[in-house]
């Protein structure tokens, strides 16, 4: 039995190509028309892959046609193909988030689990794919536990939320004031709401926009001239106004803080130019993060994750060897490892390096 994987990913294809194939991909259709004994389609916004087991060699074009549901391919698709141990290794890397656009992201594991479940329900995943995917889930869990590949937030919004949790722990009791009802602040607020924040106040020069955002996030609008009064009560201040001069300065904030000496104040300034004067960070109990600081932390986290790749690869290599030994299907390298040598495995490896 040959175990192989054919696919496209963000390494080898643009979004349009991924949409074209991913939009049509269905496991039972691939299984029915490709001649495989078992098949599973993993389709996400960054990849479309078919994992399959077959008695005979199944050409890559055959799989590609099944994915596109047409007989005619454009000819510029850069499908890669992995067989035997390479296929196993590739899946383990994918499930562990090593092959993802954002290294270490964990969403892919959930997507892989869903894909496996869908294939199992329609009877497309048999004992080979079952064994392979169960092992992949185990490997992903081990990689996550034994390395820091998932550590730290890697987007501005998630860094802000992560920092808020590092300061306050439970965000459910936090009071948040949003100054400026722009798109960026809305995204950050939504991230905070998803982590349990439920006391939200929105203030904007245009009261209609403040009302609209407040309605969206189940908060309440505050007249713009009254926002300073809120500083004695709130825990988190998000600013994103288009003001040319800083709205919050040390001189303005210090008297308000005297009434709240026991509670920290986390200020997220995502405005450009900045709404909060940098010297505000020097105040006791105030933690000011502007867009540069947030981006820098996101980059640090990403770099930290990349440092963990070697450790993760080691774990994966061990599991690939064990899997190859334990499996009865004989995971040998197939004859046609890359049917499209110019765009296949080599191009993938080149894009990863």
């Amino acid at each position, binding site marked *: 039995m040959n175990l192989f994987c054919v696919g496209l990913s963000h390494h080898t294809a643009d979004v349009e190509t991924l949409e074209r194939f991913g939009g049509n991909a269905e496991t039972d259709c691939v299984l029915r028309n490709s001649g495989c004994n078992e098949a599973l389609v993993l389709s996400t916004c960054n990849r479309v892959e078919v994992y399959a087991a077959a008695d005979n060699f199944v050409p890559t074009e055959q799989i590609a046609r099944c994915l596109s549901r047409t007989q005619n391919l454009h000819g510029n698709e850069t499908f890669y193909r992995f067989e035997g141990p390479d296929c196993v290794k590739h899946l383990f890397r994918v499930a562990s988030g090593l092959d993802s656009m954002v290294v270490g992201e964990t969403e892919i594991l959930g997507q892989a689990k869903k894909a496996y479940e869908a294939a199992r329900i329609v009877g497309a995943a048999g004992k080979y794919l079952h064994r392979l995917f169960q092992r992949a889930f185990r490997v992903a869990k081990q990689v996550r536990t*034994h*390395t*820091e590949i998932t*550590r*730290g937030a890697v987007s501005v919004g998630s860094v802000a939320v992560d*920092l808020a*949790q*590092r*300061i*306050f*722990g439970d965000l459910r009791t936090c009071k948040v004031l949003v100054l400026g009802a722009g798109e960026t602040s809305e995204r950050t607020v939504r991230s905070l709401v998803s982590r349990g924040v439920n006391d939200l106040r929105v203030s904007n020069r245009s009261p209609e926009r403040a009302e609209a955002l407040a309605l969206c996030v189940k908060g309440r609008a505050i007249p713009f001239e009254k926002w300073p009064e809120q500083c004695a009560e709130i825990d988190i201040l998000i600013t994103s106004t288009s003001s040319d001069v800083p709205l919050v300065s040390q001189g303005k904030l210090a008297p308000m803080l005297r009434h709240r*000496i*026991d*509670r*920290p104040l986390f200020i997220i300034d995502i405005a450009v130019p900045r709404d909060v004067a940098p010297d505000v*960070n020097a105040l*006791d*109990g105030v*933690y000011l*993060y502007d867009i540069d*600081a947030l981006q*820098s*932390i996101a980059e*640090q986290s990403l770099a*930290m994750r990349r*440092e*963990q790749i070697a*450790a993760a690869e080691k774990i994966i290599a061990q599991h690939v060897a064990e899997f190859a030994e334990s499996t009865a299907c004989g995971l040998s390298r197939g004859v046609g490892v890359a049917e499209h040598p110019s765009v296949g495995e080599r191009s993938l490896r080149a894009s990863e390096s």
Partner: protein
Amino acid sequence: MVAIVHTIGEMRGGIFRPMRFNFFAVGLGFIFQTAFLSVRGHALGRCPITNLFEVIVFVAWSIALFYMVIGPAYRLSLMGAFTAPLVVLLQLFALFAQIDRPHPVKLPANAWLEFHASMSLVAYGAFALACIAGVMYLVQERQLKTHELHSIFYHLPPLTDLFAAIMRLLWWGFALYTPGLISGFFVGEPLPWAQIICAIGVWILYGLILQGRYLRWFAPKRVAALCIVGFSAALTLLWGITFSTQTHTP
């Protein structure tokens, strides 16, 4: 020691997950400490705090005890990574400083004296842990202020949780130290004035920290720093007592 080696190993490897392992490592150490103190107590026929060696072991034991109680309860398991070095340092000093000299005079058991000494030393355990939590708070606060987040940042508890733990430990320490201090007046032996003044001074210092916090004189960062100052003062007092006052040593 095992907890320290494990923590250093993980930090060198860029992974820092000392939570459960450190808890069990400190727990195992605590069992050995308890066994030692029990054997020594049976041999002496009294609470084993008759010389500096035993006092240090007793303090290390009470630190481990508070960590076991406080750590998991307030999700401060990382405290083990900070507690273990302090306990190991105390134990190593006690072991190698050749201070395990039997008391020249076998004093009769004095219930008040033993109550006073043991309560005070257990209170020291709480103050020590408050000091450790204070260090953790300052480390976390510094990283948040400077925007330089290291691996340890992601394992330290949130600032507000740490501060809550500091306050609880201070209250525990103060609540234990107060009867310990009062019982010192009932031991039936004359005590040096310097010792009494220092002991009351430590009590006032911790009382001021708590009162200052209650009246919101001090910001959390100041309280964390004062915990370190307070424990240093308490440790100096303990040192002074065990060295200078032979008659007061049970």
